[in-house]
């Protein structure tokens, strides 16, 4: 694997959170009785005509601008192919002039992934297969089609092949999802199908031209995405190292057996015969509209990470920042600072103890601020602080100082610590002799004795420092 470079480009289809479909006024709703959200356009009835949904354009622009794309005048094309869930036997999509082009997305780890385009298109209906094994097409007797989903607005986000690891792919999807949710464009749930990810994977020796890619479909979770990419990478390496070619094809990820499989290959690849959709007119959002959408974009995850890192001094690509922003708890951390607390300490506590506290944690910011003040004032050891914190979380808040006092915590001042260390050295001559003589292992016994003597109130780190300082 070390001699090979993995090149991954992700195509993500996102269902937009509009009230109605892209080209007709039927409800855009998941979970209704089959074929109850239908109209002449949805069913591709003779004589039906599409009319573009303004809100779908608004949301598509939010996505494009959030991904740093240029929004441009654009057109719609017909993509012609036959499939039972395609009511018109063509899909209205965007071909050579899409709405959003040339953007990028920065991953938490700092990698920048190019976004080639984010265009609008309509979704297909859904088919279920009867009679085959596990509801699959293979071996089925018939298929049932529900057109509720047909015509739902989609945005297809095409990422450039800038991803090099499965982990980056997972980060990309996670980050993209956070952006989509933040701008209100979609709920982007892979498990529900409102976000679908296809991965294009190819392998090459570093420095070589791009290898032949395979497209992997049917990935239903972020975790599966990583597994599928890794499997496919190894499959291709095995082929290439055996001197064989990788055949360009579409492959299905099978979650149960953990492999990608080729679909039955067709004799003729479909020719989509793209041509401009004559039933629609061009879309050229006015500058005022574009600028309003841009101005109304909320703070996006990357910007929030930067803001939090600057406030706390933590590493912007570090785990603490990523986790807290992902949970939406960054505003809270900053509020703790605004309430007089220490944001650095707050970041650590929120990351470690607020996993199930939601974006509005149950501990009022002032209360957590009170805790961090005790810490930075040297009044509590880290261990003690953890215990006070646990109580704050359990009770949904409280007075940190009072809790500390009730628990009998009082951090020992430097004089008391010095005195404690004197006693420890005196009472543990053997251990001290070893430590003084250079055996660092003896430190443990000395610190343990200190903690015992102080009933846990000594700051272990401070004791350690004092012992080292005393060493001849």
């Amino acid at each position, binding site marked *: 694997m070390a001699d090979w470079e993995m090149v991954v480009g992700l195509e993500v289809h996102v269902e937009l959170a509009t009230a109605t479909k892209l080209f007709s006024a039927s409800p855009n709703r998941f979970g209704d009785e089959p074929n109850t959200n239908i109209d*002449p356009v949805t069913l591709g009835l003779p004589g039906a005509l599409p009319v573009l949904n303004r809100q779908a354009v608004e949301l598509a622009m939010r996505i494009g601008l959030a991904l740093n794309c240029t929004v441009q005048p654009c057109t719609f094309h017909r993509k*012609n192919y036959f499939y039972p869930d395609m*009511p018109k036997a063509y899909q209205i999509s965007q071909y050579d002039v899409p709405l959003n082009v040339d953007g990028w997305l920065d991953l938490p780890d700092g990698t920048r992934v190019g976004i080639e385009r984010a265009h609008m298109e309509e979704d297909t209906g859904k088919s279920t297969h009867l009679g085959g094994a596990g509801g699959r097409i293979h071996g089925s007797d018939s298929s049932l089609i529900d057109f509720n989903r047909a015509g739902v607005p989609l945005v297809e986000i095409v990422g450039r092949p800038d991803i090099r690891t499965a982990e980056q792919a997972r980060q990309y999807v996670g980050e993209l999802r956070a952006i989509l949710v933040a701008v209100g464009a979609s709920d982007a749930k892979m498990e529900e199908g409102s976000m679908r990810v296809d991965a294009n994977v190819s392998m090459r020796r570093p420095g070589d031209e791009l290898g032949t890619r395979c497209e992997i479909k049917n990935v239903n979770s972020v975790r599966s995405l990583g597994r599928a990419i890794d499997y496919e990478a190894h499959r291709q390496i095995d082929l290439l190292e055996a001197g064989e070619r990788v055949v360009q094809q579409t492959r299905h990820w099978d979650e149960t057996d953990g492999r990608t499989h080729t679909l039955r290959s067709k004799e003729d690849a479909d020719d989509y015969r793209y041509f401009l959709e004559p039933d629609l007119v061009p879309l050229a959002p006015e500058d005022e509209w574009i600028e309003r959408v841009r101005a109304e974009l909320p703070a996006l995850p990357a910007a929030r990470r930067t803001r939090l890192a600057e406030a706390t001094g933590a590493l912007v690509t570090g785990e603490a920042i990523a986790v807290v922003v992902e949970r939406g708890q960054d505003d809270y951390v900053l509020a703790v600072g605004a309430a007089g607390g220490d944001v650095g300490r707050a970041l650590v506590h929120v990351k470690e103890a607020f996993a199930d506290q939601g974006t509005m944690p149950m501990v009022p910011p002032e209360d957590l601020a009170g805790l961090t003040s005790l810490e930075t004032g040297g009044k509590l050891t880290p261990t003690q602080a953890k215990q006070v914190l646990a109580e704050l979380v359990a009770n949904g808040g409280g007075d940190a100082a009072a809790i500390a006092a009730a628990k009998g915590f009082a951090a020992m001042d430097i004089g008391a610590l010095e005195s404690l260390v004197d006693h420890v050295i005196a009472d543990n001559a053997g251990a001290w002799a070893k430590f003084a003589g250079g055996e660092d292992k003896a430190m443990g016994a000395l610190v343990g004795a200190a903690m015992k003597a102080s009933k846990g109130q000594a700051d272990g780190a401070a004791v350690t420092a004092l012992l080292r300082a005393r060493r001849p």
Partner: protein
Amino acid sequence: MDEGYRSALDLADDVRNGRQTAAAVLEHHLAAIELREPEIHAFNTVLVDEARAAAAAVDAAVAEGRDPGPLAGVPVALKDNMCTRGIPTTCSSKILDGWRPPYDATVVERLRAAGAVVVGKTNLDEFAMGSSTENSAFGPTRNPLDVTRVPGGSSGGSAAAVAAGFAAVGLGSDTGGSIRQPAALCGVVGVKTTYGVVSRYGLVAFASSLDQIGPFTHTVADAAAVIEAIGGHDPADSTSIPQPAPVLTATLGDGVEGLRVGRITDLPKGADPDVEERVEAAFAALVAAGATVVDVQVPAFTYGLTAYYLIAPAEASSNLARYDGVRYGLRVEAPDTNTMYMRTREAGFGDEVKRRIMLGTYALSAGYYDAYYGKALKVRRLIADDFARAYQQADVLISPASPSVAFPLGDKTDNPLAMYLCDTYTIPSNLSGDPAMSVPFGRGADGLPVGVQVLAPTLGEATMFRVAQTLEDTARG
């Protein structure tokens, strides 16, 4: 207008003013249908009960003092490619035989709102592809003026229905001349408006960027009234022009004094001498009425046929892909979906439709798009630009509508290319999107009617109608 047929406006006036009931008007037309329909076959479906109910509703409105609409009680025949809820809409194809749409086309809603009474769905060339109505899966329609001859196409049924007195108004669709050419062959008025003036919602699509719905009537004034009733912006059609219906009736009688009437000197040859003679007479009539004739050129006119027969089949091949046996219409059972598609479409489509689907699919296919469809779109631009230049020198243009009078049934059925030539003079205005109409102007060979085509610039319907009215006055006078 021929003897015995009253204009739609006269009928509506009678009904609105209580001189006749809508029921009586309807019965008169139903009697005509009973008498001659077996021989003419203008209709796929005659709607006796529905029409009687509609007429009764009009009469009730009049009795109760409510406004029954500008076309109150007017019997209307609709080309069978316009959706009528609950009523079979077949496009004269086996693939839609018996299909009942669950919704009405916008024009149908507007006609009913105007008080019109729908008497039936008329025969057409299958999916509007043809110039003689011989491509219908249900048998041809015959020309009421000579039943050995075609009524023209593709809207032959609607043209014949009006010519035979089965209805006072017919609606057809015009993609390459399918209103104007049958109008000319049947001796009635036929109009294609500017693309986008009449909504296409509910019109079964043939070629989306070319199709327009329009009227067949006995008089120019009737056609104006119908367009005023059915035209105007429709939010359900994205290509619908965001303006109200054109104002036509008010200026109908304004005459042609001072208008510049264009003669296209580089028009393709091929019109019969009797047709040419009628066109010359039309120029003379307009000059006599105060217009001047100017010579103009439309150099790309002659390439219209080629551009059309690449663009229209291409769009049609996509529009007709939905007929796959899944959701409606004919299905031929098969062991798998793909085979079902192949067999259903093979059995359901007639020869001309298959030819055009094949041609259109080819013109769009990988490697051929630039040579065929792409190139045709550029030719379209040339034609539109040439017309625009001509309209700087002329207010309207005059040409033949059809190269000949009605021809015998079977004359061109084994020669598609010869059939395509019927649309030589009508096609270019579909490509440019400009309005054009055919006005009956005397008789040609064998005493058969000749139609003169009036062409106008984009949204120039009012001027076009003034010229048409003058021609009609001359032809009657």
